[in-house]
């Protein structure tokens, strides 16, 4: 019965006219298509020699990446479970699939039942297809047997075993493209399509129309299939998948692996919370201690201030009037000696004094403070110098921290832990109108709010997107900001940390509860496919860390210079003092901070992190630090995330959130100040 239902188009090749025949002159388009977590991007990286962000959770490849391969255009697509328009990823993938000639369908050999559904849909679309059976190495490890040859016979297309880890089968990728062909289609389905194809609609589009895709139907101004039609086709296809899998897959042993067991344990709060705590402690030791204390201490103080800034500033002082205070500290950071050098005509004019300065400031524990009278020298090389301060902060403070952070994020993503965390926290998120999926944009927000704003797209409804967008802008500190907060808090003791966490958590809970009550509509329930747990591939983790950190620095660097330049101009022209005076009542009486803290708020509008970085210069008590970082954390998002937020959520919602953060930040910050200071 099975075989009666299927006709082989290799034998009756004139029955179907494939889309590609009429466009032979154009460069052929090859598209990599597959479910999430099948290793498409890995294969794309190999074929194009280009790096694509590879992630172990859905939603990261929302756009299409294009490259070329043996004189053909090559495209990577987001992971999808089927071709239709259920969400943005599917819409994006659908367009490129319809427009392409050859489809390389990447299949996870461990999840054939899930993945072959898409394979059969692609074949039913009448496209030329080849299948890559990826994770072939994992099958052997797990003692599963897959009859690849029979699978190829049943599907009617080439099936090639591949494994990303040792590039097995990668040498046959060209063969897969050259031998892609139209596979075995369901006969009854084909008759259903014929009616539409007679109106000279391509087979692919006919199938989508029949499966109820409104967008495609609208294009031809004909009614799309009903939900019943779609369901009939889907169930038929599902049954065929199950039949195929029954025939080709044999399992030798059902033993789970240790990682699978850890995966199970991390789902239930009883065992999952200790696992989460364990992971957070590891992260704390890695980022909070190793990176932000030991590494940054070396890069910022020794390399940044000691080597880079000292030499640049000393060089500038050769030519311009300067006063230099040199303080000598012992190993316990106590001041033991202090000397002031004055060069009214620049160091070059005073050979003896200049030499004395050089040897005095070269002592261990010496720290030099340069003051220039020339406004330009101050703008570029002074305390807030566009060149000196910016480069120290960017390269020697932020960069190591951001690398550390992205490394941890990449490890968590690639291990398959995040979807399990999403599952464990599902019920908690339900209370504020979200489902566990929301954990993904929120976790990403701890990396970069701008990036996280884009991933809110993977949430199921508009109200969920609005709630998460607000949470991200109001309460979540990004990695750069976290970096500065960590450094500020690490000197202040435990109490400020607890106050900070308590206040931020309270705002988070209040904000999301209120939004859940106010926003209309209904939230979607969780339906999440859990990838296999495993040790992340270090190569991929490092690549991801490298590209994301670099991307971050490129994006942040520009705004950092802009911010420093603005502050420098404000300082020299006296605008900074005026601003400080305007905000003074708010800063000094309500927030109980020194009035210079107002600088931090100006800077914070450009980038949140140098809002916090601006606090370094002030000598604050530990409770003042707490108030300051609470205010800065709740304060407006950086310019980049503001722009992306408006693009994603519209100007009205964007502005409401932006002004909302002003009010909340000063209100809550002040409230805390009145209580604790």
């Amino acid at each position: 019965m099975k075989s009666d239902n299927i006709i082989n188009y290799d034998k009756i090749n004139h029955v179907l006219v494939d889309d590609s025949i009429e466009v032979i002159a154009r460069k052929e388009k090859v598209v990599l298509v597959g479910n999430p977590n099948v290793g498409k991007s890995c294969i794309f990286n190999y074929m194009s020699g280009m790096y694509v962000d590879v992630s172990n959770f859905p939603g990261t490849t929302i756009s299409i990446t294009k490259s070329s391969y043996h004189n053909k255009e090559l495209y990577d697509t987001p992971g999808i479970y089927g071709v239709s328009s259920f969400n943005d990823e599917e819409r994006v993938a659908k367009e490129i699939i319809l427009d392409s000639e050859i489809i390389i369908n990447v299949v996870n050999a461990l999840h054939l039942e899930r993945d072959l559904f898409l394979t059969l849909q692609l074949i039913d679309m009448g496209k030329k297809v080849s299948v890559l059976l990826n994770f072939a190495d994992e099958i052997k490890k797990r003692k599963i047997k897959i009859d690849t040859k029979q699978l190829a016979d049943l599907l009617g297309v080439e099936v090639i075993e591949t494994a990303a880890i040792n590039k097995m089968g990668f040498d046959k990728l060209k063969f897969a493209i050259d031998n892609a062909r139209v596979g075995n289609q369901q006969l009854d389905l084909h008759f259903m399509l014929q009616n539409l194809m007679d109106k000279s609609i391509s087979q692919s589009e006919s199938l989508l129309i029949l499966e109820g895709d409104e967008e495609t139907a609208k294009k031809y101004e004909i009614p799309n299939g009903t939900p019943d039609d779609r369901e009939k086709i889907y169930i038929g296809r599902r049954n065929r998948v199950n039949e195929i899998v029954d025939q080709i897959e044999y399992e030798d042993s059902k033993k789970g692996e240790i990682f699978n067991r850890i995966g199970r344990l991390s789902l239930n709060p009883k065992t999952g919370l200790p696992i989460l705590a364990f992971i957070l402690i590891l992260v704390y030791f890695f980022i909070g201690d190793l990176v932000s204390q030991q590494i940054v201490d070396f890069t910022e103080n020794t390399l940044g201030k000691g080597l880079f800034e000292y030499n640049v500033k000393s060089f500038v002082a050769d030519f311009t009037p300067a006063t230099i205070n040199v303080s000598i500290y012992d190993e316990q950071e106590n001041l033991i000696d202090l000397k002031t050098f004055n060069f009214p005509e620049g160091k070059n004019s005073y050979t003896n004094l200049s030499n004395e300065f050089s040897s005095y400031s070269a002592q261990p524990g010496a720290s030099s403070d340069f003051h220039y009278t020339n406004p330009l020298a101050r703008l570029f090389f002074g305390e807030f110098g566009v060149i000196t301060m910016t480069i120290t902060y960017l390269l020697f403070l932020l960069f190591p921290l951001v690398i550390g952070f992205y490394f941890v994020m990449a490890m968590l993503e690639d291990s398959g832990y995040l979807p399990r965390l999403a599952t464990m926290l599902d019920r908690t998120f339900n209370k504020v109108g979200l489902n566990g999926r929301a954990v993904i944009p929120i976790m990403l927000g701890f990396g970069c709010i701008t990036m996280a704003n884009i991933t809110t797209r993977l949430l199921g409804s508009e109200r969920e997107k609005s709630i998460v967008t607000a949470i991200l802008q109001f309460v979540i500190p990004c990695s750069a900001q976290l970096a500065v907060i960590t450094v500020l808090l690490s000197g202040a003791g435990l109490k400020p940390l607890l106050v900070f966490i308590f206040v931020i958590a309270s705002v988070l809970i209040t904000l999301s509860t209120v939004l859940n009550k106010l926003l209309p509509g209904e939230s979607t329930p969780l339906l999440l496919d859990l990838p296999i747990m495993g040790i992340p591939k270090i190569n991929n983790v490092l690549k991801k860390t490298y590209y994301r950190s670099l991307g971050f620095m490129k994006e942040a660097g520009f705004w950092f210079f802009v911010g420093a330049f603005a502050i420098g101009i404000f300082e020299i022209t006296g605008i900074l003092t005026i601003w400080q005076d305007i905000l003074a009542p708010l800063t000094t009486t309500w927030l109980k901070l020194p009035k210079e803290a107002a600088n931090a708020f100006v800077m914070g509008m450009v980038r949140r992190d140098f809002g916090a970085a601006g606090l370094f210069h002030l000598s604050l008590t530990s409770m003042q630090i707490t108030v300051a970082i609470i205010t800065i954390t709740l304060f407006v998002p950086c310019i980049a995330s503001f722009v992306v937020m408006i693009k994603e959520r519209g100007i009205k919602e964007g502005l409401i959130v932006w002004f909302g953060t002003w009010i909340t930040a000063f209100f809550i910050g002040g409230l805390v100040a009145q209580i604790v200071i």
Partner: protein
Amino acid sequence: MPNNTLDKAIKGKTVTIVNLPSGNIRSQLIRLGLTEGGTIKCIERLPGGTIVIQKNRQEIAVGFDLAKKIKVILQ
């Protein structure tokens, strides 16, 4: 026995799906491998009712509100 829903599934036990909810979610469930008449194993029941099921090697988390709408026969 009748009128049971997936949220009542017992950890470690197998259930047979009798009826899936309608709408887009139905198509998504079918694509993930869940069909009426198909059997799945409940591998975890979280406090609050989120259910984790297994279909062959594939593990799928189903939120409480969705689980309540999936009619099953407990075995």
